[in-house]
Every structure is written in C-alpha cells, then in structure tokens.
C-alpha cells in the first residue's frame, strides 16, 4: 500500500472526527467544490455508515449505484462515479450497508483502499461517518491527509480525543502487526494495570523502552500520523482558541502534533443552503464562511497552519 501511495500523483483526504453533526459532510462538499473550482479533478466518496447523504449537498438524487456494487458485483469504482453538477467533481456514494460493522471483510476493505488509491483523479475526498469503528479508523488512516472536524463543545472535544486515541492505537497496532508485535501490543493494553500503563502515550513509551528496535519503527510510522483540525460553528473569538488548545493538549499529553488549519463561523446561510440542498460554495460565494473554507483548504494544500496573533 505504501508503494501504491507513492505511485499516485493525487492526494486522498479523509474527513472524520468522532462526533456526529459537526459538519463533516458539509465541509467535505465545500472543500471539494473549492478544489474543483480551482481546476483540480476531484472524486468525493461518501462512506458514512449511518446515512450517506453527501449527494443532497449538491441537490442531486441518491445515485442508483453505490459501493455495494463494488463489493458484491465487483463494479469498478470509476463506473460508480456520478456527476455532481460542479465541473471536475464526481461523487461515489456508499449506502447503509456498504461499510457497516461486520458486513465487509478485512480483505474487501483493503481492496477498496487499493482501488481508491488507483482512481484517476487529483483529489479523492472521503467523507467518514461518526464514530470510531475500525472500518472508519482504517479509512481515516489510509488517507494522505487525515482531517478532523470539531465543534467548540465539551462533548465534541471528548469525542475527538476518543477518536484520535483510537486512531493512534489502531495505527500502532497495525504498524507493528507486520513485525509480529500486534499480539504484544494488545496484551499489554488489556493487562495495562500490571504493566503500569495508563494511557496510549505510556503504552507507546512502554513498547519503546521494552524493545529498543521497535523505537525506530514507531518513530517512522508515527511521523506520518498527522491530523489536520478544522473547527466548525465558531461563535466567538474564544471559540477559535479551542482549536489551539486542542493542539496544545494533544502535544503535551499524548505527544501528537496536529495542525490547526482553520475554522468556520456559525452562520445561518450554511443551515439554509443545506435545507434547500444548494451547493454552498456556489450559492453563497461572497459569504464570510466561503472565504474561511477557502483559507483552510489552501492551508491543507500547502500544509500550513492558521496563524493566531492574540491570546
């Protein structure tokens, strides 16, 4: 898979983050629109388990074919792609069962990832559903850019920590799996009291200290564990700093360096565009939110962070 990644010219962005209703689908649709408007070829993939509804953000009806056709009949992904009404951008939709908990096997999932990586397009944007299920986490981890969406509320913050910790644990397990260490990782975590391991950070440190040669592997694998944070529904300047605080806490407690790339203010026009099934970036092109979306999408392209001057 690593090799395939290098062969690709384009980039895969996955949008997740744990809690439902934070605006993952809205943000995916907007980032896709912006990239397409810039002349990039874009394929959106909706793998939301609970309810794939990315199509409604473009005012189009539910596509007749979905990922189920890929899993069951082996239809090529490209054939499942439908027009979105925006030039350069196509959509592949999942459905209620396509990535549901036990309905697809691990090998099927890997096959899907391989085919996503081979799609002939500059950008693939994957909209994940809520939750921290393994299929969701694996899809997230497959991406070149892992994007997490947060709203400035305590519950969302808690969910985000849960999601990131699970993603990191999954990453550690899967990275060490190839070296025959998966069982050890799971064992130590299950019996963590005995090993005096209280959290994922201490687990990583324990592994590093116990098996010196694991250190290099972990360093290499965790260096690619890069999450980009977007804050949605911001209502005050203080809210914006929740992004910066999140970044700080993850770094100081878990040693994870995330990039806070930007935010969107709370605005009724967003709600209105979703209710009326109008593509936001087209209908509200002069809105402040549109500008904010363009800013963080640019930051994502360039790998830059938002710069906050004030305390």
């Amino acid at each position, binding site marked *: 898979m690593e090799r395939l990644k290098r062969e690709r010219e384009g980039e895969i962005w996955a949008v997740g983050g744990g809690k439902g209703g934070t605006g993952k689908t809205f943000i995916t649709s907007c980032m896709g629109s912006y990239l397409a408007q810039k002349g990039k070829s874009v394929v959106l993939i909706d793998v939301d388990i609970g309810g794939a509804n990315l199509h409604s953000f473009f005012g189009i009806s539910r596509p007749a074919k979905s990922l189920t056709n890929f899993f069951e009949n082996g239809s090529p992904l490209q054939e499942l792609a439908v027009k979105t009404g925006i030039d350069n951008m196509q959509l592949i939709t999942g459905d209620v069962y396509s990535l549901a908990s036990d309905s697809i096997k691990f090998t099927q999932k890997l096959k899907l990832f391989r085919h996503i990586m081979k799609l002939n397009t500059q950008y693939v944007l994957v909209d994940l559903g809520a939750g921290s299920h393994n299929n969701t986490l694996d899809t997230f981890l497959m991406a070149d850019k892992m994007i997490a969406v947060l709203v400035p509320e305590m519950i969302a913050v808690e969910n985000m920590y849960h999601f990131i910790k699970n993603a990191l644990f999954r990453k550690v397990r899967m990275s060490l799996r190839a070296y025959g260490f998966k069982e050890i990782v799971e064992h130590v975590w299950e019996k963590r009291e005995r090993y005096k391991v209280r*959290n994922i950070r201490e687990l990583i440190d324990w592994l590093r200290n116990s098996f010196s040669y694991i250190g290099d592997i972990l360093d290499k694998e965790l260096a690619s564990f890069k999450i980009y944070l977007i804050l949605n529904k911001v209502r005050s300047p203080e809210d914006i700093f*929740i992004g*910066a*605080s999140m*970044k*700080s*806490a993850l770094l100081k407690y878990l040693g994870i360096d995330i990039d806070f790339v930007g935010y969107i203010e709370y605005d009724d026009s967003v709600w209105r565009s979703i209710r009326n099934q109008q593509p936001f970036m087209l209908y509200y092109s002069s809105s402040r939110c549109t500008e904010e979306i363009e800013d963080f999408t640019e930051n994502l392209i360039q790998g830059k962070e938002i710069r906050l001057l*004030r*305390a």
Partner: protein
Amino acid sequence: MSKEELKDYFEILEVSPDASVLEIKNAYLRLKKLYSSDPTVIAPIAEEFPKMRRRQILKEIEEAYSKIRAFLDNEQNQIFADEEPAVSKDLPEEEKTEGISFSGPVLKQIREKLGIQLHEVALETKIRVENLENIESEKFDALPPEPYLKGHLKIYANSLLLDPKKVAADYLERYKEWKGDYSNEWKKDS
C-alpha cells in the same frame, strides 16, 4: 545563551523562535490559563493522566517563559549598548538603560529589533496604527492631548516589555520641550 539553546523553551511555549515578543507573551498567558483552569479542552484528557503531569506542564511553561524573557531583556540591553557606546560596559545591566532617553526613534528601533509589526502592537494595545506611527516619528502636533498621550505611551511601552513610567517620562519631556517652543513662537508671532 543563544536562540539555538532556547529551542526547547520555544517549543514548550508552542511558538517559533522567530516569534515576536508579543506572540511569546500571548502564548505564555494563554497556555498558563489553559493548563491551570480550562474545563472544556484540558479536563477530558488530563483525567487519564496523573495530576503531577499537569503541574509539571505548568512548571515547564513558567520556566520556558522566564528563560526566553531573560534572553530578550538581555538582547534589549544590547540594543542600548549599540546605541550609546558612551555607557560603560562595566555598569550593572539595570543602570545601563539609565542614561538612555526613550525618544520616538528609539522606541521604533527597539520595536523593529524585537521583530514586532506596528499592526501587532495596535491589535494588542487597541491604539490605532496612525497614533503609534505619530509617536514613533514624533509628529507632536498630531498626537492626542497629554493625558491621553501618557496613557498610550505606557501601554505601548508595556507591549515592548519596557518600563512604562520611564518611557512616558522621557517621551513627555521631549513633548513638553516642543510644546514650550511652539507656544513661545506662537506668542512671538502674535
């Protein structure tokens, strides 16, 4: 101590070594507040770590700020030393600044050496950029009345980590001198 040796401290404060004094101060205040009182973002993750960890983080933040601050203060004194070669190097650091008068151009020079943009000062102090420019260029006739000017000078000095009283006193001395000349001239003319 060089900036390179301070690298870890800049990392603890989560700012780049090129950050302005203002950014560093803001980062320090923000992190201190965050780790001592934040219930929304810190509490959920801090719960699974021992309390010691949080205290240690706060200690590291304090240490990083005091080390960087000491370095910057020293750099500032260096600026004065360059400016006034007459001041003896043997004097204790605090006295070195005694002989220097904080004129507009001196304030400007200090600000530029610290890598702070005028609009950043404006954001922090809520003093308009034009007013700050007028202070720096000593465009005395465009400045607000003395009591306001004094307030502005103090806030501005504070944002450059300078002694507000000394800055205001020095500057106002020059201002009054100008005002005296100006009113004398006016009297002569009439």
